[in-house]
């Protein structure tokens, strides 16, 4: 194991922009993609990396100094810039754990299906980056890539079980039959929503409250458009930083540009991974689709369109910025990942059964906690970014992301590793325990299916 990881860290020394094309090319050939296609895929990923790097650079050079001035003028402590999930994904894939994450996760999925510990064929290869992200942070905490890889695997096991468990709700509330959402970010919020939902159920009066969110989408719709939200935030930050009107306008346009360009660059990254992801998902679904009731594991993006999910997320965009300013202990300036809030709600929405009030309460709780978590994880994320040869925003001391940087499950796994092997042992016991409970459920369901 350590030799394989050693080989990969040698290639990694060349930097993500060289390494990723090589890795993708090799994976492509191994999975039987034709040479030209594999080469083009690898190079496309390289282009995506360079593009992302440029845009994050632009974000840094423009936003960094403004944030610095804002801090000195008003004593605001928002020194950590939220660079967004596309950058986090790139950092995760460029880490040593990230390089081997695709074959490792495929293997984990296959083992789980064979041992009846999951019903999900996870064809969403792209989102393996969430597990790599946890792994990369754990590797930094423990100084061991092997520990990082183990953490990534355990993270996946937990998420796969959550995916199975929430699949009936996904079918009922989101109208997606036969689909489960084993998504590293979305999945982490399902258990929290279940707990909060139970608590609200116990409070007389409050448990009857529901808010109708129908009109919200029309009124708050602009908060869903990156070009508007980026420009508006840029203008506000420029003004607070005490810039002259010309510079305020320049910052506004630049920030709008950054929010529009980041997804375009990430999309290139995705396009390059596509041949790999297609080949891998074809392989796994061909082999394992005929084993009783199975779910196809997809990106939770397929559930983002639910009206409640979109409405609550839109309200939470301005609310998150407000909370970031007033929340004691928070250092994160929410920016690029304001677009990612809907992903939090994809599984919260089925759990609260479409109740607008409960979704909103959930959102405020997880976002407030999320800001503190991403503040707490920001030194590790910054180190991971440096390891991946990312240019850090000048002026900003640190970077983070509201996506997996604020993920409670990622945080728990990473911070438990502060306690060494004991911490990892606790994570392992929880993951294996969940897998076994899931296995019992699956076998029971299979028996009932046979009897019926």
């Amino acid at each position, binding site marked *: 194991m350590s030799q394989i990881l050693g080989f990969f860290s040698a290639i990694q020394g060349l930097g993500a922009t060289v390494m990723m094309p090589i890795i993708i090319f090799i994976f492509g050939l191994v999975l039987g993609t034709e040479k030209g296609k594999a080469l083009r895929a690898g190079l496309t990923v390289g282009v995506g990396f360079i593009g992302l790097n440029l845009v994050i650079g632009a974000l840094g050079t423009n936003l960094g100094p403004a944030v610095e001035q804002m801090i000195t003028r008003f004593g605001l402590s928002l020194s950590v810039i939220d660079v967004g999930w596309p950058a986090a994904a790139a950092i995760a894939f460029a880490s040593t754990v990230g390089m081997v994450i695709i074959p490792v996760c495929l293997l984990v999925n296959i083992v789980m299906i064979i041992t009846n510990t999951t019903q999900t064929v996870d064809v969403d290869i792209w*989102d393996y980056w969430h597990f790599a992200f946890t792994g990369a942070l754990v590797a930094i905490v423990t100084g061991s890539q092997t520990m990082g890889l183990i953490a990534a695997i355990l993270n996946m096991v937990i998420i796969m079980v959550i995916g199975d468990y929430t699949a009936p709700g996904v079918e009922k509330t*989101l109208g997606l039959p036969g689909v489960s959402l084993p998504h590293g970010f979305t999945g982490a919020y399902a258990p929290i929503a279940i707990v909060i939902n139970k608590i609200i159920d116990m409070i007389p009066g409050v448990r009857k409250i529901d808010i109708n969110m129908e009109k919200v*989408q029309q009124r708050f*719709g602009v908060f869903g458009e990156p070009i508007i939200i980026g420009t508006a935030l840029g203008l506000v930050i420029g003004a607070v930083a005490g810039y002259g009107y010309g510079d305020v306008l320049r910052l506004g346009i630049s920030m709008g540009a950054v929010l529009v360009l980041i*997804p375009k660059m990430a999309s290139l990254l*995705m396009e390059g991974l596509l041949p790999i992801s297609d080949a891998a998902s074809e392989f796994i679904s061909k082999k394992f689709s005929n084993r009783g009731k199975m779910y*196809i594991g997809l990106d939770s*993006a397929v559930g983002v*369109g639910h009206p409640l999910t979109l409405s609550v997320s*839109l309200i939470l965009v301005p609310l998150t910025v407000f909370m970031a300013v007033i929340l004691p202990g928070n250092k994160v300036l929410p920016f690029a990942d304001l677009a990612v809030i809907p992903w939090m709600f994809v599984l919260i929405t089925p759990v609260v059964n479409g109740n607008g009030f409960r979704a909103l309460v959930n959102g405020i709780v997880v976002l407030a906690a999320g800001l503190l978590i991403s503040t707490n994880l920001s030194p590790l994320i910054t180190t991971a970014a440096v390891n991946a040869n990312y240019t850090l925003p000048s002026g900003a001391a640190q970077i983070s992301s509201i996506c997996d940087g604020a993920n409670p499950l990622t945080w728990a796994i990473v911070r438990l590793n502060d306690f060494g092997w004991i911490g990892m042992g606790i994570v392992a016991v929880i993951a294996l325990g969940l897998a076994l409970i899931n296995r019992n459920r699956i076998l029971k369901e299979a028996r009932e299916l046979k009897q019926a």
Partner: protein
Amino acid sequence: MKRILLACGAGVCTSTAARVKVEKILDANGYKGQYKVEQCKIAEVAAKSGSFDFVISTTMKPEGVKCPFINGICFLTGVGVDKTTKEILDLMK
């Protein structure tokens, strides 16, 4: 020239996967060069849909879409691609 809007959660991942597959289908049916695809976030669809011929989405239909709407989840699951392909080709005519 048909203008096609391809939407998913962020306009990044699943819409890219669907776009590549849709483009392959359109090219194979002789529409190469006769269409233009743009990706976007689902939250932008209502605002943008007015200037497109139809929208393919890998997530649910939002309110206020001003053009024909096709559910493209099949391009991710691989189930029911034929039916959706027919819908798309009908709209291309």
